[in-house]
């Protein structure tokens, strides 16, 4: 069983700072981490490996500091890692990103399963996982909350959708995007940290990958960001203190009137 887990380096969300002048995110000096939702993908892959044998390869597309998140994944127990990095890849939207990652996966050769997080906490699109499946023309199950069984070259999963859990049987190879419910991610081990420190991580770039030049980076991306602005968060709402029974009663009165005015009762 060879499992590939594409992960993303993202800014630590609780520390996101905005440049109020330009309306853009300040990335310098902000700590980056493994996209928190990718940890569930890593954990799912490691559990399958432990149950059935095989290897887990972690892959990340991004600038060279992304090596750090790859090393963290290795410290959790992944067997090997690949950095997909080239100046030509910068400015890629989800279409170009999923193309580039799919080509990197093709370069890795044989695989049985690709597992990704549901989405990244910065871009929030949830489009790259399905996009990779489409480029590789393999079946896709999104929002997977439970892996029921793997046997005879097929995998049975439960997807969390609006009305409940849809149960699917997919042939291998295929791609899963997973949600938090699937597993509780493990912490890196000391042994893993030592191994990751010494590990030399290969870089896939435009020199050693088979790529269609016109599909890369900003030039290859169908979409363009026109403007970015910071939404106003404050709603200038009503704030009431309800310290004693009298205050509680009058606060409830006012809340009921408020909800009634908005036709919510």
């Amino acid at each position, binding site marked *: 069983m060879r499992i590939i887990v594409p992960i993303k380096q993202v800014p630590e*969300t*609780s520390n*996101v700072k*905005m440049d109020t002048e330009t309306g853009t995110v300040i990335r310098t000096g902000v700590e980056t981490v493994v996209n928190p939702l990718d940890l569930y993908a890593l954990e799912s892959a490691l559990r399958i490996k432990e149950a059935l044998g095989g290897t887990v390869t972690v892959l990340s597309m991004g600038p060279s500091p992304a090596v750090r998140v790859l090393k963290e994944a290795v410290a959790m127990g992944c067997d090997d890692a690949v950095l997909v990095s080239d100046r030509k890849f910068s400015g890629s*939207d*989800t*279409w170009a990103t999923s*193309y580039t990652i799919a080509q990197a996966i093709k370069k890795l050769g044989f695989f049985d399963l690709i597992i990704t997080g549901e989405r990244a*906490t910065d871009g*929030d*699109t*949830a*489009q790259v996982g*399905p*996009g990779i499946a*489409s480029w590789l023309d393999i*079946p*896709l*199950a*999104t929002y997977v*909350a439970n892996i029921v069984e793997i046997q005879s070259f097929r995998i049975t999963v439960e*997807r*969390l*959708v609006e*009305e*409940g*859990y*849809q*149960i699917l*049987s*997919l*042939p291998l190879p295929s791609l899963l995007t997973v949600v*938090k*419910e699937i597993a509780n991610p493990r912490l890196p081990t000391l042994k893993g940290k030592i191994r990751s420190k010494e590990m030399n991580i290969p870089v896939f770039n435009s020199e050693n990958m088979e790529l269609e030049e016109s599909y890369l980076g900003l030039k290859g991306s*169908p*979409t*363009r*960001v*026109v403007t*970015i602005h*910071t*939404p106003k*968060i*404050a*709603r200038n*709402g*009503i*704030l*009431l*203190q*309800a*310290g004693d029974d009298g205050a*509680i009663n009058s*606060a*409830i009165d006012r*809340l*009921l009137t408020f*909800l009634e005015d908005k036709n*919510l*009762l």
Partner: protein
Amino acid sequence: MGLVWTIAEQYKGQLKDLSFELLARGRTLADTLHTPLVSVLIGEGVSEVSMEELIKRGADEVYSIQHPRLKDFQCESYAKILSQLIETYHPIIILAGASSLGRTLMPYVAVKVRAGLTADCTELEIEEGTDNLLQTRPAIGGNIMATIKTPENRPQMATVRPKSTRPLPVDRSRTGTIVDIPVTGNMLDDRVKVLGFRQDRANFVNLENADIVVAGGKGLKKGENFSLIQGLADALGGVVGASREAVDRGWIAYPHQIGLSGKTISPKLYLGIGISGAIQHLAGIKTSEIIVSINPDPDANLHKIADFAIVGDAFQIVPELQRRIEQRRELKK
């Protein structure tokens, strides 16, 4: 000028509200561009009457692609069908819901047809002069709003946040055409099998579709106290949500979780009880119409963004609030 398409969604033969919300969005765009609006329905068991409703709520045409094997969403067949239709009809805009279906089908298809795709949009308009679709969406946990366009590639594809707009009222004077598109073998993909469906309870919590969500957090102190949340939700005719802290403590199941690692919702009313309002939670509720916060902590973040906040003991306030709502209901009868 090419057509504007919206993707209708059905569950067990019933059209979802999302189908009508998308038509309201599509109608504005199609009118600006002076082009027809098409509702594309892939599924099974949707009646003529239901399809007429798509027309009465904004569609000029309905493409009906129905087949027993399309009863449940299954990405590979749906994508094959949608890609083939795009190559035949060359629409300029396709809108789908930012639902589990839309967020799976659209990226799969966008790759195949080399289209630009923008996720989870909350605003859509046509750019003057170029007729490009301007798509605005929250990113970085709702901290920024980005406006995105696809200058050259067509179609321009977008998923739209559920409940971010209201359906148009039924207009009985509207007329349109239902086009039956026969399903042939090469439109179906049998690699993936749908084995069934599991619902833990008769009324599985459909948070994304609820008009009223009452959510509980760490401030509830223990799992049993979610009965307070359930009681108030029942009184209001809403459903129960939760913060990550409450789910991680095992007080309530993951499908209830709202926020960055859970669901994103836009109900008419969101009521947060004992929820501090971590940035990750706020990301999931910022587009709610009305936000109410009840929390004894005067510094709770949720108070700051709420339309109505009460600084006070939730254990006293919530049962009383529930009682008063039920009382009003009795009086109205």
